[in-house]
């Protein structure tokens, strides 16, 4: 065994008594390989499609004549297609890959009937493709986050249910007594998402509730899909990867418990803060505001738990492709959530409502937090599934820096510009058109950030497919692909 196995502790891993456990992990990895590969490839495909759509939408925001001669490329359709491609295409596929993989590993139960899982995954992507084409064709519904036309959604719901079953089954047949915090999050989210999606579909699309109940349901869904689906999956991934890569336990079990249950209790209420000022009974709004502010509890708790698990090992974090992304995402989680709590306050919301500030916030959460952690998950998972290493550390660095700089520019531009926009809109002396024109420089900055992100995504995809198709590029023997010099033992 070469340099990679002379370990920090000074003992070779062979001497540890967990050899059997490691062999078990190998079996589990093998059992999920095909399905996870399919999900990752789909996710990257949707990421690319979503990126193109995002660029189109971003350019159109300040160049309205750009590609405006085609009906299917009008802003409303492109923007919604972007949202759904990213949330349900990139987001869900990568969750299915990374989330199910982590679940299977932690439950120490291999995935059985993996062919069925693959078929369910294919159906999910077929349904989504139909849905995105439906949106571009003009069959879009008028409901934000639920734009996919009704002929595609039952397929999505059904295939989701089939995929979710595998997570539940893995948990049902788990080994060992202790249930790790990542398993709580994944198991809960596996149930939360179908509940949200099906209730929202029924109450808005199939048997529409009357009056403002529809909007309340809409924002209940749209906000919870972030907080009770993307967030727990990303947190589960971070909770798995941070101790895994660093070889150090998570700081506190008690903080994990507090963080999980406070998220479960408070998040569900928070969505109505999108309707502040709307014709909704004020107690419902106030309850939403209080719950949004109470989200400080899980956020601070998770932040402390992650921070204390990493503290002192910053060099290792910086060196590992996985943790560089994961820690970036974890820090973003704290920031975006605290900003989100503040945005729910009425006085702040009076400024930020109906401005680009909200758009910046959404990308802060879904990209800087969720997506970055999922990138980290892919960087850790793929070498295990493929028994190879990432071919290019340079591309990983490019990916990281392009995404980190890009999303920072986007969030700063949209939130600073959005705040100014909000102040101007609240000033009756400034004509509305003037406030719109004043956002143009910020929107151009957003387009620039989009180019950065595109570069990062292309670097990621190139590295991924290079690894997938050029098998001999980097073999496991040479040790993990790291982003900085290895002085002592390897982490990846």
């Amino acid at each position, binding site marked *: 065994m070469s340099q990679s196995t002379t370990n920090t502790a000074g003992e070779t891993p*062979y001497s540890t008594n967990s050899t059997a456990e490691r062999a078990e992990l190998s079996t589990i990895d093998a059992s999920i390989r095909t399905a996870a590969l399919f999900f990752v490839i789909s996710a990257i495909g949707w990421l690319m499609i979503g990126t193109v759509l995002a660029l189109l939408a971003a350019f159109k925001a300040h160049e309205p004549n750009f590609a405006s001669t085609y009906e299917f490329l009008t802003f409303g359709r492109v923007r919604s297609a972007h949202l759904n491609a990213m949330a349900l295409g990139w987001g869900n596929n990568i969750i299915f890959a990374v989330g199910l993989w982590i679940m299977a590993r932690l439950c120490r139960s291999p995935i059985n009937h993996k062919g069925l899982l693959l078929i369910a995954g294919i159906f999910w992507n077929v349904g989504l493709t139909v849905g995105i084409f439906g949106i571009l064709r003009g069959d879009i519904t008028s409901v934000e986050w639920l734009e996919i036309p009704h002929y595609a959604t039952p397929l999505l719901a059904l295939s989701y249910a089939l995929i979710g079953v595998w997570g539940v089954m893995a948990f049902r047949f788990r080994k060992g007594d202790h249930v790790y915090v990542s398993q709580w999050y994944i198991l809960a989210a596996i149930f939360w998402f179908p509940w949200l999606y099906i209730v929202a579909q029924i109450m808005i699309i199939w048997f529409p509730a009357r009056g403002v109940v529809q909007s309340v349901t809409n924002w209940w869904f749209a906000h919870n899909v972030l907080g009770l689906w993307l967030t727990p999956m990303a947190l589960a991934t971070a909770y798995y990867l941070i*101790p895994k890569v660093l070889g150090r336990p*998570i700081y506190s079990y008690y903080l994990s418990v*507090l963080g999980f249950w406070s998220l479960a209790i408070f998040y569900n209420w928070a969505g109505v803060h999108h309707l502040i000022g709307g014709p909704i009974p004020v107690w419902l709004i106030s309850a939403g505001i209080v719950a949004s502010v109470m989200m400080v509890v899980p956020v601070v708790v998770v932040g402390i738990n992650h921070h204390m698990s990493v503290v002192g090992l910053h060099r290792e974090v910086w060196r590992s492709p996985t943790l560089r992304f994961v820690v970036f995402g974890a820090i973003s989680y704290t920031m975006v959530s605290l900003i989100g709590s503040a945005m729910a306050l009425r006085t702040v919301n009076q400024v930020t409502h109906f401005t680009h500030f909200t758009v910046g916030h959404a990308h802060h959460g879904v990209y800087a937090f969720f997506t970055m952690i999922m990138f980290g998950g892919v960087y850790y998972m793929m070498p295990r599934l493929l*028994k190879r290493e990432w071919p290019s550390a340079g591309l990983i660095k490019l990916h990281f820096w392009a995404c980190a700089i890009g999303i920072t520019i986007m969030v700063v531009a949209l939130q600073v510009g959005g705040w100014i926009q909000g102040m101007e809109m609240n000033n009756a002396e400034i004509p509305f058109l003037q406030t719109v024109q004043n956002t143009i420089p910020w929107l151009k900055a957003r387009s620039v950030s989009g180019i950065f992100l595109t570069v990062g995504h292309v670097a990621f995809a190139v590295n991924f497919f290079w690894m997938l198709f050029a098998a001999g590029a980097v073999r496991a023997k040479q040790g993990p692909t790291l982003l900085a010099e290895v002085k002592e033992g390897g982490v990846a």
Partner: protein
Amino acid sequence: MSEHEKNPGPNSASRESLEQAAMQDEQMQDVHAQLMREKEEPHEGFSPVPIFLMFAFAALCFWGGVYLVEYSGGYRWDAYSPDFKPGADKPKPPEISLFDRGARIYRNQCAQCHQAEGNGVAGVYPPLAGADWVTGHPQVIARILINGLNGPIEVAGNTYNGNMPAFGPNGLGLNERDIAAVITYTRQEWGNDASEVTPDMIRQYVADYGSRTAPWKAEELKENLGPVPGGSSGDSENEAGTGESGATEETVAIITSAR
């Protein structure tokens, strides 16, 4: 070797190919190296929750409770403004006009003697309808109400010798508003058409006569009348100077004599 490159690891290859020489010990070791390099599956430490956090969260919960109490609109479905205060816009008890209020008091307290139509009972109870004691200077009837009336009095051509009870603080204890209301009623009902008497006027009269215990005599009633409050007639204004101070002296004199 190229065979191996197509099949990345032992698990994606069929069992037969595993048995082939293509997978050699060295490569087996490569694969294992990666697996063995991996740290153990994650677990958790048991550091306690920092105590300041618990206090901070308790404070946060307290804030949440206060916020909900302050801005919940009483949990009503029809409260839409955060400034809505439950009970603040509750319809106030309908404002009953002095006249209506007086009518009710009259029915309960006066009509037994003076009758519902204000005609009194011939020879016993004087009529109120058309009586200039009632419709004249408001101070006159106010004095009667507050302190009562004793002895003969001529009303509408007939003389009555009865005893009208006091309704002021030393009598049956109607409050100022009630006295004002019932006077207003009697001055404006049954064809009577005199000015309204406000509670403020009665408050002033009660301050002046409230402590007097002796009922009025008919002949005293029209003495030392003050100006009609709010009245605009020149005559009453002239009387004002002398009348008011006189009334006070009168009162003092009567109180002393009563002792």
